């Protein structure tokens, strides 16, 4: 049996193991679950080395990307500033103090540092990610195209803005309001969230089923052909 056929065969086997969970949690599923976790961990570790730590950090740091010419001269001088990369590497090792009860506070330093990084980067993220959404919501309630009143776009914009404001109002936590009108706005906010949930549910059926259809096609065509090939 060729390696390609073996790959397809074990792929089908794994798929059936996962599907067997639908009936009940069983040993066949459990063995593949653990195998999957082991393989994913092994792949993840080497990938971090292969795609980041080696090419971007270690190789330049050790000067291994410098070519020595036959006459002994070098393609580029070694950049001493690269040695600074040792600092984050040592600092990152503090994570491992989490295991010692007495020194676990050292791990807190690097944890705090990482939390700080994503904290500091959030401000630029807000203005580039969310602010265009806010300004994108400034839709005119009366829309004219070629001097003509476009009632359909106007109606859509009115519904859009009404939904946006009522759902935002629903999420106010600290405004105490007894007035029935505002109570209605908040209730309609919740209804519109439900419409949004329903719409998303409907649109995700396509994605979920897409992969199930693809998996069944794989089992019925590719995998079945290999299994038959094994018997004959």
């Amino acid at each position, binding site marked *: 049996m060729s390696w390609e056929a073996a790959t397809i065969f074990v792929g089908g086997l794994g798929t059936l193991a996962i599907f067997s969970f639908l009936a009940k949690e069983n040993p066949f599923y459990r063995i593949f679950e653990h195998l999957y976790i082991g393989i994913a961990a092994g792949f993840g570790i080497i990938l971090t080395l292969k795609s980041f730590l080696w090419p*971007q950090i270690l190789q330049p740091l050790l000067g291994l990307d410098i070519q020595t010419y036959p006459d002994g001269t070098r393609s580029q001088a070694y950049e001493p500033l690269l040695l600074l990369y040792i600092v984050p590497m040592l600092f990152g090792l503090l994570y491992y103090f989490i295991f010692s009860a007495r020194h676990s506070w050292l791990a807190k330093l690097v944890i705090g540092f990482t939390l700080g990084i994503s904290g500091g980067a959030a401000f630029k993220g807000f203005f*580039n990610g969310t602010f265009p959404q806010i300004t994108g919501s400034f839709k005119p309630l009366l829309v004219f195209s070629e001097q003509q009143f476009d009632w359909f776009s106007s109606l859509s914009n009115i519904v859009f803005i009404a939904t946006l404001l009522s759902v935002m109002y629903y999420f106010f936590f600290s405004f105490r309001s007894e007035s029935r009108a505002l109570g209605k706005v908040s209730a309609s906010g919740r209804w519109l969230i439900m419409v949004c949930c329903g719409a998303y549910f409907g649109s995700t059926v*396509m*994605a979920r*089923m897409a992969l199930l259809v*693809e998996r069944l096609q794989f089992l019925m065509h590719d995998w079945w052909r290999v299994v038959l090939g094994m018997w004959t």
Partner: protein
Amino acid sequence: MIGAIDRRVIYLLVLLGLSIPLLKNYSVRPAPIAAAANLYQLVEELPSANGRVALIALDYGPNLVAENGSQARVMIEHLMRRRIPVVLTALYAQAEPYLEALPQEIANRLMLEFPDQRWTYGTDWINLGYRVGGFQVLQSIAKSDNLANLLKKDARGNPLTELPIFSKVHTLKDIMLVGEFTGLVGMLDIYLQFLQTAEYRPPIVHGCTSITIPDAYIFLDSGQISGLLEGIAGAAWYSELLSKASPARAIDESRVLNTGLGVAHLVVIALMILGNLTMLWNRRRSE
């Protein structure tokens, strides 16, 4: 009183509902999707001989390959037919094998269709491989004035300065189109946020899974993306347009998949109706 149907019975119903059409390879013409037609036009009008490249990001794994894979396939094929150099990369680790396999598979198919023409690595496409670091990678690409120096090597370890495609690519301005294919939460946002400078922002087109269609529409509506492929339906209609333009093109699997999905939807709708009938029946019986 009809007890609730055991979930295993429902799983069986779904299994049967899907397997039957697939066994007979039954397929119908896909529904026309406006956004896919506009994207086809946009790629069709791209200038092809100016050395500028299309950056294609495959940010999907085995879990999203059915939708994003079909979309990336039809768009990369269109770019290759128009001889626009494609630079592939990914910010998602699981995309590694697709970065290698997909362009090669398309090139092979094109070479079968046009025996006298060549599509080869280095001149028609290159693979920068998976890049760790998320938004920081894009930020560095946007800021860099010498991309070959910043990105150093491609996924196969070749220095970028060696590859013909990179001879004319120096800054973000040399990327005339960015195609981002993903269904991952928040992945498109970092391309929109960080792959730009104050002077230049490459047009970004997006292939989303059907779950992220509603978000994608927010970005299409606010003009942050210039084109959209919606799930397999988008890919199936794009593929239909490609087949119209070049009749010798083999039918790809998005058409059969699209039909199988139609049947799957009908099964879900039937179950929703069944669920309500059981409830009504029980309520009337208990009165």
